């Protein structure tokens, strides 16, 4: 292990963090409203607020289609979109676009299932008190589901760490890119090992931190 490799690892780690941070953020921005919509348009006995069977099943299909795209194919398909949004199709910035879009439907499902855990009776009570639909969502549904949403967020970040490594294949930068270019293509297994160890540590930190936050939330209930 030489100092050049260390500085490369360091740089790649930074890139991965940037990719993961922004793609988590954007996938939440895209996925949260979709997840909420999926839940509130569901059946009333499941806790739906504005049940609409047609809208719900159409949205659900779209989410399923997007989720079943293999990520590696999505990466290639979305090259023109990346170019349109960030002006380039390679590098860290460009990788954030497909990462966010790939993770959004996943986030939507995670959020939907977190909201499903909220007792429909509580929603009914809040409705009977005269809450508007918007109040039901932001004052009841989301706060009630917060611990489950938090574990969903942990899961999303960890997934995105994995996905971001794949983005290396289209020159997305980050630890995956480093591992492929140096470790695989130039036969330097120490790079592979180094990248994997850093990813392992990242995942572990996120998981432990996420679990702690959830635990603390539950302790206050």
């Amino acid at each position, binding site marked *: 292990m030489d100092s050049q490799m260390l500085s490369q690892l360091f740089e790649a780690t930074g890139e991965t963090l940037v990719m993961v941070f922004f793609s988590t953020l954007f996938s939440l921005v895209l996925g949260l409203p979709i997840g909420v919509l999926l839940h509130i348009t569901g059946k009333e006995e499941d806790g739906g607020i504005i049940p609409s069977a047609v809208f719900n099943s159409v949205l659900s299909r779209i989410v399923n289609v997007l989720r079943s795209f293999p990520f590696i194919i999505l990466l290639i398909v979305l090259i023109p979109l990346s170019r349109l949004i960030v002006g380039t199709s390679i590098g860290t910035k460009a990788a954030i676009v497909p990462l966010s879009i790939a993770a959004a439907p996943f986030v939507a499902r995670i959020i939907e299932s977190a909201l499903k855990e909220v007792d429909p009776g509580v929603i009914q009570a809040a409705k*009977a008190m*005269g809450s508007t639909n918007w109040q039901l969502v932001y*004052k*009841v549904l989301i*706060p009630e589901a917060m611990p489950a949403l938090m574990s969903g967020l942990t899961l999303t970040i960890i997934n995105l760490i994995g996905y971001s490594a794949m983005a290396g294949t289209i020159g997305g930068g980050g630890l995956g890119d480093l591992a492929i270019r140096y470790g695989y293509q130039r036969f330097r297994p120490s790079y592979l090992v180094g990248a994997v160890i850093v990813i392992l540590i990242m995942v572990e930190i996120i998981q432990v931190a996420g679990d702690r936050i959830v635990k603390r939330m539950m302790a206050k209930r």
Partner: protein
Amino acid sequence: MHIRLKNLKRDYGQLHAVQDVSLDIPSNTIYGIIGRSGAGKSTLVRLVSMLEKPDAGEVYYDDERVDNLEGKALIEKRRHIGMIFQNFNLFSSRNASENIAYPMEICKMDKAYIKKRVNELLELVGLEGRGDAPISTLSGGQKQRVAIARALACKPDILFCDEATSALDPQTTRSILALIKELQAKMNLTVVMITHQMEVVRDACQRVAVLDSGRIVEEGLVSDIFANPKSEVTNDFLSNLTNVKDSIVRWSNVAGRFTLRFRGGTTDEPVISNVTAETGATFNIRAAGVQEVAGEELGVMVLDIGPDEQHVKAAISLLRKYGVSVEGDL
């Protein structure tokens, strides 16, 4: 507030949950609606409380029709009713105080007022100083107290109780009923109490409607219905009550074929002796005692009549003439 239901109907596919229910619920009373599970109670309360729309029929609060309200008007109207539930339905993300504050928050009331009112309400339901408690640390009775405080936060005219005591033990049930009675009188509430427990009707309600298969089979003053039940369902509820009642002394292990109920007015006369003298029937008393129903005392007697069926028939028709209600395997 006076509630009037007119020919309410609600179907779920093939299931006729509520069929043709008309009721007058007078203002400033505790009104019981009793029925077995599946009788349509929950659907009825959802219709009356504007949570669901009837397929046909009308709901009036005072003289305003409310079943056809939509959008803003509906939300506004809902803010003037309170509701409590079997499972409390409190927000686990909020502590006791924040739960009570919720209905005032959604009406955008002044923060300082909310704080003051929350403390008032905590005191009202006997939970002073427990405002910071997370919901999971409260007992069932305390949870229902928080729910009651939350329901009354915006000073509603009507309080709906949907099986509010069904998840509570008998002692806690009594204390919650006592609280509801106290608050009803204090705030001039119209309380509608949905239940499957005759004890609740006996201890808290002034009037009762008996619901069976989506229809009202009997309606009236609680004391009248206890003294003289007309429908089979009511009889069923009452006989279950007789068996668990501890003020009744039982001096025989034989169950007794008939249950007699005497009202205050009739109990001065030697009814049993008179019937024996007139018909020659013999009575074997298995258990007897006094029940208090809606503030009125009711004599209850479990007995067998002999010596044969002819005497049984004669005795029963004479007892009924004396104003005694007779239930049992005739």
